[in-house]
């Protein structure tokens, strides 16, 4: 029972306007960017985004107008620059923009996914005490609570620990996204997924979800993945669709296969920085690299073979050791 299908077909089948969507990976690494691009091309809107370590794809979906509700802890590009345009979006406020960003911390989100994985309704925590993340005045989803599907009835609750008199404990509601999309190195047609390197909590991202789409560098046979099964992160049961999308995490990295693309990232940050004054700059970029590109294959064609080869990982190390990385003095892109 093969779950192999095209990326567009998988997205059309599982992601709808208003879906609660989780995109795996962390920061600039192993993120399902091809899927994010395709969601923008499909014109899917009003997404509720939630994952443990949001960043590049979530920013793009926000700037492209695809997302309206985000429960997140961070948005940025690390060394490559600040989340320009996105910060303006947040500064203008939900009333004006229709875009809500609700702040939590990594561990708060992580625990909410753990609860989702386990199938329990909430989970206690001691984290971030004293932080304004727990400030009850700060809840940008207040008017959606009890109204919008899968927005928790409360941001959090406080109870007395029934096992320890007098101790107040904070409870966080579980998360069960409608769809989680994960980019992996390898997957089998039955959905078995192998991830090399740190898994960035992609197991709980997948296990908490109602549906899972895996995009992967390579589809391999089930029997290949039955060798050293300890290396497999996500079992077939969680997975609904397997899509072979080589370089599907570009411009981010995918351990063992390719490195991040510093030329592309520099450019992306540049157009969003300039886009703060002149949104046309970003619009042109979006048209050039996303909307005006027919598919991920066409995107890779446009990047060109020489660029993709320059990013290719050294198989022993997992990344491209000779990649130029001094961002202020990059040679021209290959």
């Amino acid at each position, binding site marked *: 029972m093969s779950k192999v299908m095209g990326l567009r077909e998988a997205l059309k089948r599982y992601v709808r306007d208003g879906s609660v969507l989780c995109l795996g990976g962390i920061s600039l690494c192993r993120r399902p960017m091809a899927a994010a691009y395709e969601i923008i091309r499909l014109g899917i809107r009003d997404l509720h985004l939630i994952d443990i370590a949001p960043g590049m794809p979530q920013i793009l979906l926000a700037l492209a107008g695809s997302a309206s509700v985000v429960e997140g802890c961070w948005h940025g590009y690390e060394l490559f620059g600040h989340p320009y345009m996105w*910060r303006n979006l947040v500064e203008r406020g939900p009333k004006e923009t229709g875009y809500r960003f609700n702040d939590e911390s990594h561990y708060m989100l992580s625990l909410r996914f753990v609860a989702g994985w386990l199938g329990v309704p909430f989970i206690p925590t001691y984290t971030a005490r004293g932080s304004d993340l727990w400030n009850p005045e700060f809840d940008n989803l207040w008017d959606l609570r009890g109204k919008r599907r899968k927005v928790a009835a409360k941001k959090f609750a406080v109870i007395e620990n029934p096992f320890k008199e007098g101790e107040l404990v904070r409870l966080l509601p579980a998360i069960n996204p409608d769809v989680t999309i994960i980019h992996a190195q390898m997957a089998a047609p039955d959905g078995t997924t192998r991830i090399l390197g740190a898994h960035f909590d992609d197991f709980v991202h997948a296990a908490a979800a109602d549906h899972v789409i895996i995009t992967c560098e390579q589809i391999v046979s089930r029997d290949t993945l039955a060798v050293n099964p300890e290396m497999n992160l996500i079992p077939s049961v969680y997975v609904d669709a397997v899509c072979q999308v080589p370089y599907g995490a570009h411009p981010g990295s995918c351990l063992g296969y390719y490195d991040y693309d510093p030329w592309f990232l520099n450019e992306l940050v540049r157009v969003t920085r300039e886009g703060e004054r002149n949104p046309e700059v970003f619009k042109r970029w979006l048209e050039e690299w996303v909307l005006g590109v027919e598919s991920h294959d066409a995107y890779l064609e446009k990047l060109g073979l020489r660029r993709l080869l320059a990013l290719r990982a050294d198989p022993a190390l997992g*990344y491209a050791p000779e990649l130029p990385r001094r961002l202020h003095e990059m040679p021209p892109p290959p």
Partner: protein
Amino acid sequence: MRCLHHHKEVKHVNGKADYTALEMMVVQASRMIRDGEVVFVGTGLPMIASMLAKYLHAPNAILCCEAGFWDSRFLHIPMTVGDSRWYVGSTWCAGQSYMFSLLQRRRIDLGFLGGAQVDKYGNINSTGVGVQLRDGYYVFGKRFEGSGGAADIASMANRVIIMMKHERRRFVERVDYITSPGWYVWLHDFKHGRGRVRLVPRWELGMWGGPEAVISTMGVMRFDEETKEMYVESYYAELGITPEDIKRNTSFDIKVDEAEPAEPPTERELELLREHIDPEHIFLRE
């Protein structure tokens, strides 16, 4: 994802030194790392400082990051939190739920944090300034990247070291938004409704740990044992910094009485940094 790359803009202060303020910060941080400690580092200077410590006095320090790599022996400097460069030599490949559970179980000895604002009690703001309620929603005059794991680290690492660019607008009396709790926090009282705020010491909230030092581009600050207020321990004299410079670039009243010139980097430290740890000059460029 506690990002310290704004430090790349720090200019070398003309003094008699042959090293930069960034290098000085890294060296100061490195010396605070003890052998055998589990060090939770983000991308940037703390990572480099930890590697330096491992080359010198703390060979058994364990570097880990929120992305899930454990005890990495990276050969090239990671530029992002999940960078594949972290993989080399790692003995465990986990994810955030694993790494942060170590914090909640008090297994992380030392965490490093940066941010846009720090106040006298070591509260850090990396979320945004000019926070206000508008149409029922909270918004910011200027928005930053956000907590990432900073709030978790600040609240649950056994000790925390803060690294910041030293500017008046960054060293403030009270941060606009507490992303990461320090020694005393302005707490919104759940029981008494909106707007009720009181200053509460972290230990009253059942919290352990707390910020131990602030390493800035000008000097090293610590927190008074009694008052938990920040004071200047040392200043980068060789880089031309005086205690007065620090006072002038701090918008709260900071004690400098006991401040001494900071111990400069050794040749060995600088050589390791420049030639072995960051030969690509990704973080340590001027």
